[in-house]
């Protein structure tokens, strides 16, 4: 009997102690904010991963009870994320290289709307980014890191040897290429082994020559690839990729030059070509011994029509939310702030659509130039091939990539390529 009483008392004491502990703990947690674990799968690896982890650290400093686990997925991120979603165990947050998958996941209900971040984003980013991140009027994607693909990188010494200056218009640009050739340099480094560099070139020409309205129509395949505007853009493109004497190794050399090689053809102390027409990520593959401004520099892709001057084609990595909980919402809200973007901008190798970043945050002068041009562009269009079905716009040896490569080997065949593009597009868009 006595035993029993002690036992009861002890039990009661334990229960009370437990309740008190729970209550105080709960109270403390509420006071400190959000708690939980979130998993993030993203495409950023290497240096990009380190920079992103710095951003994560800033978030966890603010929210010490949240644990963020980042898994770098690299180029396989879309497959990783789709498989995780199909397997019923998605990460809380995913960072995708192309918006196509985001739209797909949103339509299927796998991605959750991030309307809570809309106000911050509307303040910080141009409306075009919000509409790119929206599906059926709801915001699903946040563009945290972007790329300005309307840039031309050049070798300073070769320009000096030729007495050449950056060109602002297409005729001046083609004349510049001629001058470079006469000086004994090859004008263009073309990375035609990677089909996406060719789609980027085409998109830059098309946006400037046909205008943003047509660009949007072609992106959604509302006009055909056999349209006169496409053929006109192809003919302009042929003036560059068809200038075989002005490309190291000629056209067949270009077809075997991958992107990093094309960069080292220009951003090197033993240059093989004077200009690389590619995005702001070009310096990542520069040879170690060349320095910005002194050895290489950048100018905007030349304009073709006055109305489309300073038009920019760009890309971006989309942050999406696959599980809605307090911690993942807080993380997304944090990424929408200028503070988060500034953190990475400070570390370099970053362009953000976020206009809240102070120009001085970009330490590298060339990075500042391209990033600000992107954030403040009057006409901005997202990389067309990234918005198209992957089978057409983003697959090695197929669709656009393959057909533009065929175009490089035979730049006179404008009609033939346009017809083949249309046939491939028709198939990819599902008839």
């Amino acid at each position, binding site marked *: 009997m006595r035993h029993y009483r002690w036992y009861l008392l002890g039990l009661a004491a334990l229960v009370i102690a437990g309740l008190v502990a729970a209550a105080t703990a709960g109270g403390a947690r509420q006071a400190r904010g959000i708690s939980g674990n979130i998993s993030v799968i993203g495409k950023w690896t290497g240096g990009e991963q380190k920079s992103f982890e710095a951003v994560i650290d800033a978030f966890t400093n603010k929210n010490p009870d949240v644990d963020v686990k980042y898994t770098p997925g690299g180029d396989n991120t879309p497959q990783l994320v789709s498989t995780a979603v199909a397997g019923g165990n998605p990460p809380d947050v995913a960072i995708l290289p192309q918006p196509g998958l985001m739209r797909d996941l949103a339509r299927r209900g796998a991605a959750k709307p991030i309307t809570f971040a809309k106000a911050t984003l509307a303040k910080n980013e141009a409306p075009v980014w919000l509409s790119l991140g929206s599906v059926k009027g709801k915001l699903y994607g946040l563009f945290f890191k972007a790329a300005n693909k309307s840039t031309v990188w050049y070798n300073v010494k070769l320009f000096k040897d*030729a007495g050449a200056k950056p060109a602002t218009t297409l005729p001046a640009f083609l004349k510049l290429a001629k*001058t470079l050739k006469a*000086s*004994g340099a090859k004008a263009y480094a073309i990375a035609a082994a990677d089909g996406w560099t060719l789609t980027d070139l085409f998109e830059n020409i098309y946006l400037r020559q046909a205008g943003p309205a047509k660009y949007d129509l072609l992106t959604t395949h509302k006009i055909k690839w056999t349209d006169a505007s496409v053929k006109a853009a192809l003919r302009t493109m042929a003036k560059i990729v068809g200038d075989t*004497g002005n490309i190291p190794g000629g056209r067949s050399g270009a*077809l*075997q030059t991958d992107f990093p090689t094309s960069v080292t053809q220009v951003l090197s102390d033993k240059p093989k070509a004077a200009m690389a027409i590619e995005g702001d990520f070009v310096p990542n593959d520069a040879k170690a011994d060349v320095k910005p401004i002194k050895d290489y520099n950048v100018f905007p892709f030349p304009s073709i029509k006055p109305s489309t001057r300073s038009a920019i084609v760009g890309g971006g990595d989309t942050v999406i939310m696959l599980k809605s909980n307090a911690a993942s919402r807080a993380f997304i809200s944090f990424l929408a702030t200028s503070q988060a973007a500034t953190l990475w901008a400070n570390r370099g190798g970053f362009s953000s659509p976020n206009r809240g970043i102070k120009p001085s945050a970009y330490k590298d002068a060339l990075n500042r130039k391209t990033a600000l041009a992107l954030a403040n562009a009057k006409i901005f269009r997202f990389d067309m091939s990234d918005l198209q079905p992957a089978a057409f716009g983003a697959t090695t*040896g*197929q669709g656009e990539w393959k057909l533009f490569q065929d175009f490089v080997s035979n730049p006179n065949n404008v009609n033939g390529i346009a017809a083949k593009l249309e046939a491939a597009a028709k198939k990819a868009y599902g008839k």
Partner: protein
Amino acid sequence: MSGGSVTAEPPVRAAPPIARGGRLRKHAVTLVFLAPAVFFLAVWILYPLVDTVRRSFLYRDTNRWVGLHNYREIFTLEPIVTAIKNNAIWIGVVPALVTAIGLVFAVLTERIRWSVAFKTVVFMPMAISLFAAGVIWRVMDQEDPHVGALNAGIGAIHDAFRPSGALPDAESSTSRLTGSPKRGFVLQTPLRPGDVARLGLTGISPDSVPSGAVQAADPEPSGDGITGVVWRDFKPGGGKTGQVEQGELGLPGVTVELRDAAGKKLESTKTTDNGTFAFDDVEAGGHRVAIGPKTFAKPFGGVTWLGPKLITPALIIAYTWVWAGFAMVVIAAGLAAIPRDVLEAARTDGGTEWQVFRRVTVPLLGPVLSVVFITMLINVLKVFDIVLSVAPGSSQDDANVIALAMWRTSFGGVNDYGLGAAIAVFLFLLVIPVLAINVRRFRREV
């Protein structure tokens, strides 16, 4: 595994009820022992197999039944048709080539002193993964002779016979100087004694101007001769074409030809450091001045191994390089097992070495050769990684094989799982006859 012992057990020993209980228990033991293997086979072989066949009748990643649609696609989609054609080439060439090379190596290494060292070297590629071998060959096959080892070798031979000229990239700066680097350049203006020939060239980088060059000089006309200048008609910004300007260098050491009106070569001379040249005592009448094609001979540019035309041969070379060692070692083992006295007898009977090889060695090696051949046949049917690692994106379509087409269709961006599964089933069906032959051989040998 206990099945054998059940039948082997003498029935007399045990009474019927106990025997039945024992047999049940024995079955249970059998099942317990089989269970793990059955489980693993079911989960990792049987289920994927059945599901792949099921998926091959569905549309993309949906559950929509499309019947044989995906199978029709295999034979109509261009990249997959190319893949089937290429696989046919692989099957036709590689097993025979690898077996033949292996046989030759095996027979020859029997005769040489350093056979172990030689065999080790030939076998070495087997020690690295096919993907790594592919990366090596991707570099070896590069078009630029400064990078690709194959082209460096060919280039060394090429340059020995056709040395490159002093100004391989030069072009004419004016329309009066016509021609091409292949044919040489001719100044179209007829020249009489006392005239001056200005041969402006562009496209010469400052680094490739011949050494010793100084500021170009516009030559003075001479009474009865033809004078002239060959110079780099370019200064920063372009300059005026056809005019020798301050800041433009003469091109020394260029061979200039004097031709008569019919184009026959009369004499030739070399330019000096400021680019000038002179032909003295020229006869009256119209002459032409030209620079011969030798000056513009291009250095060897490299064979486009990785381009659309040569990619499959380049891949087959790489693949053979890897597998020849395997074939050699297996055939050498078979060779060692051939009874020597048979060969001796053949030789004693007056057979030549070739006859002995052809009529005795090869027939005796028959089983070993067919093992190598069939192994290679199966390997070649599913060839994948070397194609993926050697072929650059621009020619991957031209190098496509069935296994690569399957992977690219399912995961390479198209993400058409239905069609990918259909290709996998198709490949599986192709492998089955070869497997059947192999299984029959195993049975016969056991």
